């Protein structure tokens, strides 16, 4: 029998005002995220390889991973890399790909409203898809660990930067990333996270709407707009049918 993934009851029981920012939260976030960060490292090696092929030096690729901390947009940026640099295209796609982070950050507001601006805006720098999802899962249990995003972000960041360097250095040696299944890592991470985020039958309709919207949008629009549109469509539907 499959274990229950229904966190809603415990989330309702624990008041969100109990959210605090502690060293224990940083530690728990860091340790919980290490398995996921290992997965991110596989992805980071792939990024390093692509960055190397695009002509970036180790220092340049490492600088990008250190300061941007957003894998999909970095991969797309180095795919666009050319001489001379198409600056506008790179920056516009960076924003488009990362706009989903605005929604993800907004989803944390009900817990983060209890933290100081420094804690909130510092933690958000290290927000990536994977540790955001882990953080939501943790906070939904009513743990009150406001520092979970920071701790898990530190784990992601460390592995991301280190694996980028490894990837650039190994760039000439590794051939096709698909041979090692590296190209499947992102999908695998998100499938595992979806299994975690499944919240019973109440999740079904918004997920189907997100899926249909994303599939339609990805076939009609360039870039990663489908992520933003899929998430928005589900949220809008939920707002409309709230007390219907």
């Amino acid at each position: 029998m499959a274990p229950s993934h229904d966190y809603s009851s415990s989330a309702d029981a624990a008041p969100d005002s109990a959210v605090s920012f502690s060293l224990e939260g940083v530690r728990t976030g860091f340790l919980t995220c290490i398995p996921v960060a290992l997965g991110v490292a596989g992805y980071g090696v792939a990024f390093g390889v692509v960055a190397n092929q695009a002509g970036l030096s180790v220092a340049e690729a490492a600088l990008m991973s250190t300061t941007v901390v957003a894998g999909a947009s970095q991969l797309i940026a180095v795919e666009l890399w050319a001489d001379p640099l198409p600056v506008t295209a790179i920056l516009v796609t960076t924003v488009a790909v990362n706009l989903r982070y605005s929604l993800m950050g907004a989803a944390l507001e009900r817990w983060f409203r209890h933290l100081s601006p420094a804690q909130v805006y510092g933690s958000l720098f290290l927000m990536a898809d994977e540790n955001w999802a882990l953080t939501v899962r943790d906070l939904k249990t009513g743990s009150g660990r406001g520092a979970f995003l920071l701790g898990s972000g530190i784990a992601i960041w460390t592995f991301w930067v280190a694996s980028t360097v490894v990837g650039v250095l190994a760039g000439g040696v590794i051939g096709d990333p698909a041979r090692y299944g590296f190209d499947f890592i992102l999908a695998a991470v998100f499938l595992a996270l979806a299994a975690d985020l499944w919240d019973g039958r109440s999740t079904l309709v918004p997920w189907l709407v997100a899926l249909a919207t994303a599939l339609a949008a990805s076939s009609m629009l360039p870039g990663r707009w489908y992520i933003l549109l899929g998430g928005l469509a589900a949220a809008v539907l939920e707002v409309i049918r709230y007390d219907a």
Partner: protein
Amino acid sequence: MREGWLSLDPFVVAVVLAMAVLTYLTKVGGLWVLSRLEVSDRLEAGLSVLPGAIVIAILGPELASGGPVEWAAGAVVLAIAWRTENILLALCGGVLAVVAFRGLV
């Protein structure tokens, strides 16, 4: 072609830092706007479905662009994740499965 592992082209650095600033603004933008608005229960209900919906929106086209090999490996990931709730196990199982299935096809 730039030479040397540690070379930093000033123009490349400027583009990378511009990417970093824009990315940071997207990360903080949504929460910043939301913390200045009164959030109704209705809006909160909408936001509560965002996490899963975004994950599904990322996954859908990604899996649709794959084939039977990726779908079968995806089923392996889901099965392991569901049974063990261990992401690393699910991840390793999925990557091993995709390599194995590609070897079979």
